[in-house]
């Protein structure tokens, strides 16, 4: 076989790829006739929703598919067909020709070895490199990916690095052997938005300074707009559209691409759409939630001081008002939501929910009030008992609070609720696993609203969903909120989503409330430097605007 050595030839050339998985039921055709190519030094983004086959396609480049997958077609990598390589040849190609950056940096690194050892491992596997040389190379590469003080840090263990630094190390491992192409599988999905911006800068440097090609797998159109040169849109195992990034965003051809782009929530969309002050929607009356200098401390172990998750937060939610709570992971936003629902104990200050003091509350006294508080959980896959039908699950609150004697008596109300969230009433007989993620989340909303609560807490209700599904769930949410007029605490890390729904937005940073104001105020004229940085870090799904925003962010970081 001849090798591709001339510039201009693609580094990866996938032709008519079919991948089929054996399952207990019918075989699943995950990839159905995909043809793609990646040129040297370009970033090809493969986008699509979960189950579209994008990850499987990318993994086939490394020959990383499980045994029960049947791969047909050709995947030419540096002149060799990966599909037909023997395991030993495949091992030589991995690392040298192609490397991978994984989604979750905390699990991609082995916790019991130093990061230097892990980088050196790849070097030593592919050549006769002495320990000293490997270490020197590891230090060099760590410096290049922006780890400060690489000479000392090379001997540190993964847990001593932050999430963003860990992802830098994973990228360093991928770069160590100078591969021709790097496959990055959702490299920023597990990271906070400000860290994501930094990692995207690093990946851009990988392309521009190191001259590597990157296959970027993502579902985030903003990330695509920020980094990609060319985009392939996958839908149900097929590539439906391939175009240079600017063209694709400016003039999407395929219907699915248009729908996908249309479903992405844009920053400030709500503020522009409904100027007639949504804060007036809040009815007068006592606030349903009133927090004053709220503190929540998780007890520490072995006489160490506890972890202060929430630090002197004061906020109020008026009846009928939607308060958006925004922050990065570890900012304490979920903790506040759980404390309001009585799932986590508030330890200091004061937190009144429907007039009941939650600091030092007793479960028995609070239980009757629980009927007036609804909760929607983040992950629709785990928030339903897998052994109960959807109808039984939605009927649970009615049975618990004595509004219905048994499941049969609750049925009319259950059907009414499913109808309200736009689910067919026949779904009451189905089990949760037979519903898609978005349908399950809507059923979860139906369950939370079963008792007509005055307050609904939604903890990242759409972060586990695909964009097009997310749009539908948000639509149902705001429709019901307008109709039923419940107050809501909407917790999210996604500023655009919160901007769509919330009357007021509260921004949390490391347990402290740094900014609180109406949606328009916070999104258009942020006062606190952290809010400014957070807003500037959000990539928007438009390559031209995103390039400008990137420069603005760089200026902000100074």
């Amino acid at each position: 076989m001849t090798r591709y050595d001339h510039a201009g030839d693609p580094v990866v050339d996938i032709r008519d790829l079919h991948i089929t998985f054996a399952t207990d039921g019918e075989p699943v055709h995950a990839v159905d006739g995909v043809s793609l190519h990646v040129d040297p030094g370009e970033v090809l983004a493969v986008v699509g929703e979960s189950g579209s086959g994008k990850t499987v396609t990318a993994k086939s480049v490394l020959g990383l598919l499980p045994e029960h997958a049947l791969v047909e077609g050709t995947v030419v990598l540096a002149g060799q067909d990966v599909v037909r390589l023997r395991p030993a040849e495949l091992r030589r190609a991995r690392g040298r020709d192609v490397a991978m950056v994984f989604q979750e940096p905390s699990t991609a690194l082995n916790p019991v070895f130093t990061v230097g050892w892990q980088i050196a491992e790849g070097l030593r596997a592919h050549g006769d490199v002495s320990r000293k040389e490997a270490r020197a190379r590891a230090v060099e590469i760590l410096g290049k990916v922006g780890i400060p003080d690489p000479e000392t840090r090379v001997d540190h263990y993964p847990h001593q690095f932050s999430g963003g630094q860990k992802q830098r190390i994973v990228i360093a491992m991928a770069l160590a052997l100078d591969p021709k192409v790097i496959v990055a599988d959702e490299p920023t999905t597990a990271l906070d938005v400000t860290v994501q911006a930094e990692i995207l800068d690093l990946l851009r440097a990988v392309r521009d300074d190191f001259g590597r090609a990157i296959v970027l797998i993502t579902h985030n159109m903003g990330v695509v707009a920020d980094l990609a040169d060319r985009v392939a849109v996958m839908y149900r195992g097929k590539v439906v559209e391939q175009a240079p990034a600017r063209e694709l965003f400016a003039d999407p051809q395929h219907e699915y691409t248009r729908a996908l782009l249309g479903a992405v929530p844009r920053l400030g969309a709500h503020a522009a759409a409904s100027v007639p002050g949504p804060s007036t929607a809040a009815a007068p009356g006592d606030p349903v939630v009133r927090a004053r200098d709220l503190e929540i401390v998780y007890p520490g172990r072995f006489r160490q001081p506890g972890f202060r998750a929430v630090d002197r937060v004061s906020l109020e939610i008026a009846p009928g008002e939607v308060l958006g709570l925004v922050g990065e992971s570890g900012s304490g936003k979920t903790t506040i939501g759980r404390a309001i629902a009585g799932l986590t104990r508030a330890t200091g200050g004061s937190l009144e929910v429907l007039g009941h003091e939650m600091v030092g509350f007793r479960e028995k006294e609070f239980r009757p009030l629980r009927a007036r508080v609804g909760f929607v959980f983040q992950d629709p896959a785990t928030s339903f008992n897998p052994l109960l039908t959807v109808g039984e699950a939605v009927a649970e609150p009615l049975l618990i609070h004595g509004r219905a004697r048994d499941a049969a008596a609750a049925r009319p109300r259950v059907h009414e609720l499913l109808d309200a969230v736009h689910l067919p009433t026949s779904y009451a007989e189905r089990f949760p696993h037979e519903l898609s993620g978005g349908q399950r989340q809507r059923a979860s909303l139906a369950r939370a609203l079963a008792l007509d609560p005055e307050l609904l807490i939604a903890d990242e209700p759409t972060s586990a969903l695909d964009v097009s599904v997310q749009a539908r769930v948000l639509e149902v949410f705001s429709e019901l909120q307008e109709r039923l007029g419940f107050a809501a605490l909407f917790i999210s890390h996604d500023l655009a989503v919160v901007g769509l729904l919330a009357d007021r937005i509260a921004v949390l940073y490391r347990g402290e409330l740094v900014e609180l104001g109406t949606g328009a105020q916070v999104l258009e004229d942020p006062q606190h430097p952290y809010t400014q940085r957070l807003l500037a870090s959000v990539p928007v799904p438009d390559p031209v605007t995103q390039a400008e925003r990137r420069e603005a962010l760089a200026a902000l970081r100074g």
Partner: protein
Amino acid sequence: MSTTPEPVLPGAAAHEARWKRLPVVWQLRRSVGLQRGMLVAGLVICAAFVLMAVLAPLLAPYDSNQLSGPDGNFPRQAPPSAQFWWGTTVGGYDVFSRVLWGAQTALLTVVLAVVASIFLGIVLGLVSGYLGGWLDRVLVTVADAIYAFPSLLLAIVVSIIISGGQSSFFGGITAAAISITVVFVPQYFRVVRAETVRLKAEAFVESARVLGASTPRILSRHVLRNATRSLPLIVTLNASEAILTLAGLGFLGFGINPTAAAEWGYDLNRAISDVASGIWWTGVFPGAAIVLLVLGVTLVGESLNDLSDPRLRIRRRLPRRVAPATKGAA
């Protein structure tokens, strides 16, 4: 992103008949190849022993403690013959009848022991795992302490305490069953507790808490049924251990009195001296019965274990759907 495609086939699983979703049936229908062979072999062996136990009154030519027939006392250590198919023991019992009746004793004890330990283990595990606190700490410590003892020694002590020398048919079986129970409760306790601790943090249990459900309701409706999934596995694996423990008790003389019921372990003990004098039939048949029953139950248990884990389950090979495409790319 998920690497393996989710086999979401709306309505496929739930609308299967209920019996098809029962533990063993479910796995049997999904098995192929060697795993299916193992499971079927195990099931056949177990079924044969259950039949033996149920039909013992019809099949066995003599009672388990019968020493004489219409034509006088049975001969001692008689070789297999037309009258005594598998010969007679040193005490003059018919080996064939003793082996058949022994199946009844063994299965009854195992069922009693497993049922008792499941109930105790589940209740303690649920309460301990869900409530936590000092109760949990005490129960876990006790379970660990029981673990630390050699199980046979513990069973001997318990059987002495319980039966105190008297050993009627049911008294003996209950004593043996309870002593096995004591040994196995910690295993069920451990499994159910671990599952409960995991489920306690699941969103659907928290959602029940947010709705204001009472603790008994959460435990019975949301935790219990989800916590017991792995039990069929442990039941089968433990059942084979229970058979061995019972046989061990009998062999050491702490089991059931030979006049009360037939017991393979006791018969093996009595056959020790026969081995040197070339009398093979008194030892081989009860011994083979123990080995076969344990083998059958273990085969079922092990293959259930493999089949329940999607990563270990063998699947049918896929047919190639297109002819190998363009050869060699360059």
